[in-house]
């Protein structure tokens, strides 16, 4: 298998054109840019900022729960924190971070000069900022930010005490975030399908590109669903409709169905690109092709398909016909099959590999192990009768945090360590990187593992106070939380330090040993020039798809 033999796009290329290709000067560059790398950077930095905003909210939550009784904040504000922590992390941190990675990496990985629709790309970023601004503005309003939970269930969320003046702002924020996501997703699909180097067939595409193609489809298919659901909340609250009001013939449970028809694919929107990055990083450090490329693609597509037909497992206790409970229970369990295929493939990729354990690999291995744990607790909750016991307890909190923090967030960290040297041309400080990893990996388990016990013992979620028997594990969990939160400052430092020059070591084009066998981006110079692939590469690396040929 040949490594990429690609034409490098050199810096002087733009002199041949009548357009000014360099970035605009000053701050304006970042506002009017259409360059996929600039926009990727904007997305990533914005997501990092929101990660710390959402993280601070989590610190408030853990501080309040450090001991039983009410310590620091009043209960309504506590509930605002749980609600806003979720909304900020989902829509402000994790999703934008992956869109940022998509912006940076997809054109580099498929040999495209830029995203297919660069102006719309700019708009989708600013719509995201606008949406988050509207959402954040509710923190400063009379009555405070929404505190009925991120799912915004009626009738709770329609009560004056749970929303104050915040509801319409939160709803319009969802609309703007939805527009942003849909525009971003359309751009990603058009880029992948229309801008790929002619030499790259669909089944040559890196897994990251595949997972994003499928994720983008999910986004377009479900963001309008969420928009529709919150629109009905708005009209129920302000325009006398009865969608979720049984007195008028409506049904509050309908909202839950619609919300989770969006919400379940939404959780895969956050995890599929995670899978893609893991499938990109693990082969490089195992120095082997990815095991089972084609099965990875099909597993991703299967998970995406299944995500549309399992939503009601989020609402087993709401009062559904028994046939519904059974159907959603079995359908949910089927998801374990393609997910198992993926975990097997990552493990098999590492099997007998010549492995080294740089920071990105450490985070990726931790992801495989800890995500699997989150998956197993998911299976436990898929069992409807058991779920009656766990529902709305800390068990579910532990479950989805295992699938998001040591999975999505860890992989985002891994992606940062993996690609920052490529983007900046500087090597990060490996010692601090490893310190960051070990502190995070240990503290995240101190933080979330005890929450399984709390949940099984019956501690409800979204409550600022608790019975005395939950005290010990809560204190341990909070200590883990504070260590985890503080450790992330190391990442902030590393990002800053690497951009500013890192270790001072000049990285090679490949950065990682033999990386060019695995992906086109490693055949470009480091740091990556402002414009790349103005002529598409003539050949593409195929080692990662070895077993399909």
């Amino acid at each position, binding site marked *: 298998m040949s490594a990429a033999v690609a034409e490098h796009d050199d810096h002087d290329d733009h002199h041949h054109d009548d357009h000014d290709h360099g970035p605009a000067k000053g701050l304006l560059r970042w506002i009017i840019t259409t360059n996929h790398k600039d926009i990727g950077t904007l997305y990533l930095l914005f997501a990092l900022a929101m990660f710390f905003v959402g993280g601070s909210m989590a610190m408030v939550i853990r501080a309040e729960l450090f001991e039983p009784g009410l310590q620091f904040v009043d209960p309504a504000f506590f509930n605002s924190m749980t609600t806003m922590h979720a909304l900020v992390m989902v829509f402000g941190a994790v999703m934008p971070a992956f869109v940022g990675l998509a912006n940076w990496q997809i054109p580099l990985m498929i040999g495209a000069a830029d995203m297919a629709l660069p*102006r719309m790309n700019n708009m989708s970023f600013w719509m995201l900022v606008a949406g988050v601004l509207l959402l954040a503005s509710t923190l400063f309003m009379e009555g405070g930010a929404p505190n009925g939970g991120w799912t915004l269930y009626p009738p709770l969320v329609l009560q004056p005490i749970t929303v104050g003046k915040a509801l319409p702002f939160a709803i319009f924020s969802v609309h703007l975030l939805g527009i942003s996501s849909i525009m971003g997703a359309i751009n990603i699909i058009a880029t992948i399908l229309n801008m790929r180097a002619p030499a790259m067939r669909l089944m040559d595409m890196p897994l990251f590109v595949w997972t994003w193609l499928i994720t983008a489809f999910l986004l377009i298919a479900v963001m309008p669903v969420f928009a529709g659901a919150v629109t009905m909340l708005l009209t129920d609250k302000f325009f006398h409709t009865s969608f979720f009001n*049984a007195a008028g*013939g409506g*049904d509050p449970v309908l909202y839950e169905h619609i919300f989770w028809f969006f919400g379940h694919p939404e959780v895969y929107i956050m995890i599929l690109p995670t899978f893609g990055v893991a499938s990109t990083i693990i082969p490089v450090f195992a120095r082997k092709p990815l095991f089972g490329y084609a099965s990875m693609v099909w597993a991703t597509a299967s998970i995406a398909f299944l995500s549309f037909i399992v939503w009601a497992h989020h609402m087993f206790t709401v009062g559904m016909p028994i046939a519904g409970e059974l159907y959603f229970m079995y359908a949910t369990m089927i998801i374990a099959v393609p997910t198992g295929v993926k975990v097997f493939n990552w493990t098999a990729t590492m099997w007998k590999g010549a492995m080294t354990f740089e920071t990105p690999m450490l985070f990726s291995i931790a992801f495989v192990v800890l995500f699997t744990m989150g998956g197993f607790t998911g299976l436990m909750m898929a069992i409807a009768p058991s779920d009656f016991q766990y529902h709305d307890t800390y068990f579910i909190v532990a479950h989805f945090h295992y699938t998001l923090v040591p999975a999505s967030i860890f992989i985002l960290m891994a992606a940062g360590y993996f690609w920052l040297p490529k983007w900046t041309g500087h090597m990060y400080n490996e010692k601090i990187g490893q310190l960051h990893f070990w502190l995070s990996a240990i503290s995240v388990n101190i933080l979330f593992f005890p929450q399984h016990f709390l949940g099984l013992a019956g501690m409800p979620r979204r409550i600022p106070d608790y019975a005395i028997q939950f005290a010990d594990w809560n204190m341990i969990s909070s200590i883990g939380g504070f260590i985890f939160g503080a450790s992330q400052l190391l990442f902030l430092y590393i990002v800053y330090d690497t951009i500013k020059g890192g270790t001072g070591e000049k990285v090679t084009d490949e950065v990682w040993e033999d990386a060019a066998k695995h992906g086109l981006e490693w055949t470009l110079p480091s740091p990556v020039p402002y414009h790349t692939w103005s002529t598409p590469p003539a050949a593409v690396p195929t080692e990662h798809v070895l077993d399909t040929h």
Partner: protein
Amino acid sequence: MSTNTAYYIPHKATWPVIGTAGLMTMLAGFANYLNGSSIGPTMMVIGLLIFIVMLVGWFTLQAKESESGMYNHGVGISYRMGMMWFIFSEIIFFAVFFGTLWYTRNLSVPWLGEGATKEILHSAYQATWPTNGPGNVGGHYEPMGAWGLPFLNTLLLLTSGVTCTWAHHGLLANNRDQLIKGLAATVLLGFLFVTFQAIEYHEAYTEMGLTLGSGIYGSTFFMLTGFHGFHVCVGAIILSVVLFRSAKGHFKPENHFAFEAAAWYWHFVDVVWLGLFIFVYLM
């Protein structure tokens, strides 16, 4: 200039951030208005004006670039994919409201009329469609019939689909006269549809007691037909712009993405109406 052979990538864009600011101002204004704040309406108007300026500016730019041959075949494909997936997202948005109608009619309303719910809570309630619920929310109303204005509107929209396609054939055959006449007829039929719908709404509110607040029937009726009516307006405005551009001599038989996009959108609106006519009015 070698730009028409290469994929055109713009290097800066000022309209997106302006449009975003406009939309955000408009929505923040709307939210303030709903909260009873007096600055709400002013913000809405300012935001809307900014948004309209953005639309005019951005689309003028696109039209200019397109007419000067800056877009190659690849750009055309990207735009078509963009429009296709945008319409797909719109279909999903309508599917939510159709789904709501299906769920309430077939599941939740019948549940209200059976078992313990009926016996204990509201034994007098007859769970039939149309309904405004056991609480008789919104008071007495008459359901909207299918065979008056709605049927006329069905004919209007179907005809407009034909005139739109006729205009497209004109464009392909370089028959500008047919293009412009066909488009003009389509736009006219579109606005006529909206006018009749306004009359229908007026009748519902003033004579039939049927409002957005008439329980689940009123809610689903006005949300489905209202969002559709809004989309007809948008589609007719898009077609008006295409008509205006055609009159200026824009579009060639081999290069007319804006026309195609507008036509796709129009047919989408058309098909949604057929769904509405069957599930909201007829059944």
